[in-house]
């Protein structure tokens, strides 16, 4: 049975990290009703920046992550302010096409700047495992899991305690009313997107530590974020955490009980089933869904 526990633990650790990958995507979709197809590209960009800091400055990725977050926040802020704000009121596939164009731009840009080589941020300690009974807890994944959960909880705290957080939530619920209260919607939207890309960047750096990546991996992360965001309920930060964990477990258990190739099929069928029976996600009502667009 130890194989099963090992798979479960592994799935949970993986799920925590996937949650952080997806939480930004869920935030953008929930608050601004924008489906960001370039989200995966920002995750990979975060990995490359973390790798660059590590290889040229020797900065440990888990520290470099903070710098990566800052850089990506500014990039995200600019992208929203200059590009996405121009079409944010449009029908759903307008914002989607814009972010698709952005994804092409980012992925090919990384192909040219960082070349298509497979990279990984190799640290001395990440591969070693903490052994509990006969369960192996890889240090790198454990650290990534812990940080992912801490950051997500911190995000929820920020969203519900600070002024910025409140303004984001308010704009998400009813942009018209929020603007009447003096909230500068354009700025708040840009902050939200910046926050989302910063989170994606941090998750990307940690993915860089535990995984290998190259520009083509962007699509995979966007797809994962889709599934997790819907599982957890749009714009619901805790939901993204639960959705991520669930995704990790489904992939782990699926892989354990079924032939390895069935893993992805399970994840998508789970998505469709959840959508049909609980469109608002598993974790309570996504309170953003009922709102007026002005």
């Amino acid at each position, binding site marked *: 049975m130890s194989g099963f526990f090992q798979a479960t633990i592994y799935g949970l650790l993986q799920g925590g990290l996937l949650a952080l990958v997806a939480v930004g995507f869920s935030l953008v979709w929930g608050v601004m009703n924008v489906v960001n197809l370039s989200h995966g590209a920002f995750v990979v960009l975060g990995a490359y920046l973390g790798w660059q800091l590590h290889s040229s400055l020797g900065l440990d990725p888990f520290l470099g992550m903070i710098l990566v977050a800052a850089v990506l926040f500014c990039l995200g802020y600019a992208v929203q302010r200059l*590009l996405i704000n121009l079409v*944010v009121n449009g029908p759903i*596939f307008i914002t989607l096409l*814009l972010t698709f*164009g952005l994804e092409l731009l980012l*992925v*090919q840009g990384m192909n040219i700047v960082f070349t298509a080589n497979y990279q990984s941020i190799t640290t001395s300690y990440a591969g070693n495992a903490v052994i509990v009974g006969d369960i192996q807890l890889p240090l790198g994944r454990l650290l990534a899991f812990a940080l992912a959960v801490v950051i997500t909880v911190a995000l929820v705290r920020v969203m519900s305690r600070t002024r910025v957080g409140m303004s984001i939530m308010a704009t998400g619920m009813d942009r018209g009313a929020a603007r009447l209260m003096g909230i500068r919607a354009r700025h708040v939207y840009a902050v939200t997107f910046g926050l989302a890309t910063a989170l994606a960047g941090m998750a990307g750096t940690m993915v860089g530590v535990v995984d290998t990546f190259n520009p083509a991996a962007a699509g995979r992360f966007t797809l994962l974020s889709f599934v997790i965001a819907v599982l957890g309920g749009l714009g619901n930060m805790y939901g993204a955490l639960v959705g991520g964990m669930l995704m990790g477990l489904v992939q782990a258990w699926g892989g354990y009980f079924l032939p390895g*190739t069935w893993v*992805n099929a399970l994840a998508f069928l789970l998505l*469709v089933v959840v959508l049909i029976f609980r469109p608002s996600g598993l974790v309570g009502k996504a309170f953003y869904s009922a709102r007026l667009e002005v």
Partner: protein
Amino acid sequence: MAPTLSPAWRQRWPWAAGILAVAAAFGLQTQLYSGQVRTIGTIFMFVALALSWNLIGGYTGYASFGQVVFFGLGGYVTAALMTHAHWSFWLALPVSGLLAAGYGALIGIPLLRLRGHYFAVATLGVAEGTREIVTNLPDLTGGGGGITLPTVGAAASTKYLGNDGFYLVFLVLAALCLLVTALVSRSKFGFALRAIHQDEDAAAAVGINTTRTKVLTFALSGFLTGLVGATYAFQQVTIYPERLFDVELTVLMVVMVVIGGSGTVLGPILGAIGLQFLSEWLRQNYTTIHTLLLGAIIIAAVILLPQGLVNYLREARRNGDYSLLANVRRYRL
């Protein structure tokens, strides 16, 4: 502003010219090289795909992000029938279309209850899930390793059509999609689609059976896409689930319809031709950065022409103002 033509002729003029163009296109391939014939064949393929997506995404306003599932299903049903049952392609083609339509109805009934983003993501989930299922049925579909249709020697139930042959089949499919779209847009059925697009509750209130109309449209769109997928599979000879269910194909269909002008007859055609020529031209001249430029151009097109070329031209012609500025401000925050 009514043109000087007599009403009856004004009614039929577009149809006549449409048929003339399709007929002319038939003769075109005799003038071209086999490479060019194949390139234009691919353009007709995308015209057909864009028109069939337009039925559900443009007219009815249900943005299906899993449209490639019909493309892939059509391809794999034909591949299975021709490889295992040794059917002729001409028999497998309609059957693949019908099965794709059936699948569309089957998934449509639960999914078409969802609206907006949720429908888009659900169909994306179905497409990705179906690809994984196809990958995991190796004895029927060859799984990840791909499947090869018999086109050489005795096993070939239908002789390989070659570039000219596939050019004609894709042209016929594009013409079929054009005919269906034209009929739908002018008929009672087209009104029901537009009504559902604008406001489903109001549509139901005037007696439109919205559920049946949506499922029917989704199945029809699936049928046409399935036919194109089946032809593509025969053309490629060896097919892989990764390519047949590639989400990029769906996104390309959406790009073509939105930039061309969704909910119109002409939009998807212009969008498909324009985008295919653009990406082909970029590939030829900027080999290393052509996808980068394509991304930039799509961003520009979406910002400058959010409602699509045809709708922009129509509105500009009606109120005489051709400035793009109004477009940029249209959806601005």
